[in-house]
């Protein structure tokens, strides 16, 4: 499990906000009100946030500041929310991204030969 940095030689002790619970793919997780979803999940050892829509390759945070959209998940029914920019709240329901039922990428194979 990845740890939280409770004390820091320069930044001091970590002041935690109210504890909240949320679910990620139906599993219950704890976090602290307002912290980023990506941070809350990583603190509990969760790195994989979605599978690539086409290839199913696992993906997690990359840029952590909203540029790359690699951490996009479904939050309370809304698709494409960036976990790195989403503050968690009590009762939040988060789902990872999955592969598409039908691939749309076959055209490339035809193009190659």
């Amino acid at each position, binding site marked *: 499990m990845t740890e939280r940095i409770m004390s820091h030689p320069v930044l001091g002790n970590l002041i935690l906000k109210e504890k909240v619970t949320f679910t990620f793919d139906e599993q219950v997780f704890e976090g602290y009100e307002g912290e980023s979803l990506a941070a809350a999940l990583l603190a509990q050892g969760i790195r994989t946030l979605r599978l690539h829509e086409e290839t199913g390759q696992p993906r997690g945070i990359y840029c952590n500041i909203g540029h790359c959209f*690699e951490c996009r998940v479904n939050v309370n029914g809304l698709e494409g929310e960036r976990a790195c920019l989403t503050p968690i709240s009590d009762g939040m329901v988060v789902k990872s991204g999955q592969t598409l039922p039908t691939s749309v990428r076959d055209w490339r194979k035809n193009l190659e030969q």
Partner: protein
Amino acid sequence: MQNKSMIVCRCEEVSYDELVESASKYKCSARELKLRTRAGMGYCGGRTCRTMVDNIAHLHHPRTSDEITLKHQAPIRPVRFANLGEVKS
């Protein structure tokens, strides 16, 4: 070599080899390279790979200093239809 599986555009999973081969075959602009391979045309809008796609294209294509070879397109962040149509001032 593992470059076949070395991805440059993470959104569309376009590989390094695919880009380098297309660039050397067509000696095309960065924009054309993007259109040929879909690199930079995925969810993030090319924010992550644009410098790489641009650099690969310019291996075979002279760089002019006064053009932005990969243009930006609105919307620069995905927009929900639910959020459209309502104008607040």
